């Protein structure tokens, strides 16, 4: 039984390390802030979760505490990335669009606000 837990833990460690690496590579390669947030958030969330759970499986006494960490990551990581994305749009850093302007539906909200301000 212990042996199986150990193997699961080691596999989780490897998967987690790979995804953390991919997160770093992703924010280096992507063309604009939103896409960097996409890769960064997802990859580091799953990577961090699986490394921490892997440590929990390797030392079964620690499992409960590692679960707390996993829950905290799953709650706080998307909130901070959402706050960053919204802040970035509010600073008028518009996303990189391949297909043209009609692909950005969020712009109309700000256009409305600007019209209200000028009027």
């Amino acid at each position, binding site marked *: 039984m212990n042996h199986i837990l150990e193997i699961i833990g080691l596999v989780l460690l490897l998967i987690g390390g790979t995804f953390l690496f991919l997160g770093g590579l992703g924010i280096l390669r992507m063309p604009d802030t939103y896409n960097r947030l996409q890769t960064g958030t997802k990859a580091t969330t799953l990577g961090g979760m699986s490394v921490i759970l892997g440590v929990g499986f390797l030392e079964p006494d620690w499992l409960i505490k590692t679960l707390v960490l996993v829950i*905290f990551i799953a*709650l706080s990581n998307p*909130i901070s990335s*959402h*706050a960053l994305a*919204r802040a970035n749009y509010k600073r008028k850093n518009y996303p990189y669009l391949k297909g043209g302007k009609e692909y950005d539906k969020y712009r109309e909200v700000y256009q409305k606000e600007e019209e209200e301000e000028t009027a």
Partner: protein
Amino acid sequence: MKRVLVISILAVLGAYLAEALFQLDFGRQFFQNGVKDFYLIASPDKLKVANVITAIVVNFRGFDTLGEVTVLFLATTAMGSILYKGRHKLGERAVLFSASKIVTTGSKLLFPAIILLGAYVFIHGHLTPGGGFQGGVIIATGFLLMLLAYSDYSVSHVVLSVIESLAGITFATIGLLGMLHGGTFLQNFMATGVLNNLLSGGIIPIIYITIGFKVGAELTGLIYTALNEKD
């Protein structure tokens, strides 16, 4: 040319100073059998504290900790008195607008958990790393989260100063009780319990709880005052 002159003069002075400092021995003869052995043996054996650093900070060197807390208190008071000009009315806040629904709802959920984490850190100060100061900082950061998320969240200065004063008075009283009991400030006068239990270490957990409350209240007040100050 001027710079070269200055640098060379500084280098000569520095060399003299360094030589003089190396010749001092800083009372090295007293440190032959320093106090480290005493601390390492006494804290688990006599005081039943698992975290030696805690025992040093709060018990053996507790008077210094009182000084540190006083320095923090003075700094907070000075900053508050400089920044607070008595002109902030309701509705004139420095955090201009609330964050989006996601951030506000998320901080509602996370804020109690962060306060609990701070309480956990300072209650377990004698068993795990951390202690009163760190726990207090975590609690203050929890309040910072609410202040960031809501533009109309406010903390009461009166309540904060009451908590702070009560915590400070408790700290000093426990120290004086130790003086009555054993002759030195913060001498342990309670049962020490069993090593690695929560209720162990005599007065150390109580002192850490008071430090936690005091630091938390002070830093919360500092952040609140600084956030609401605006030119």
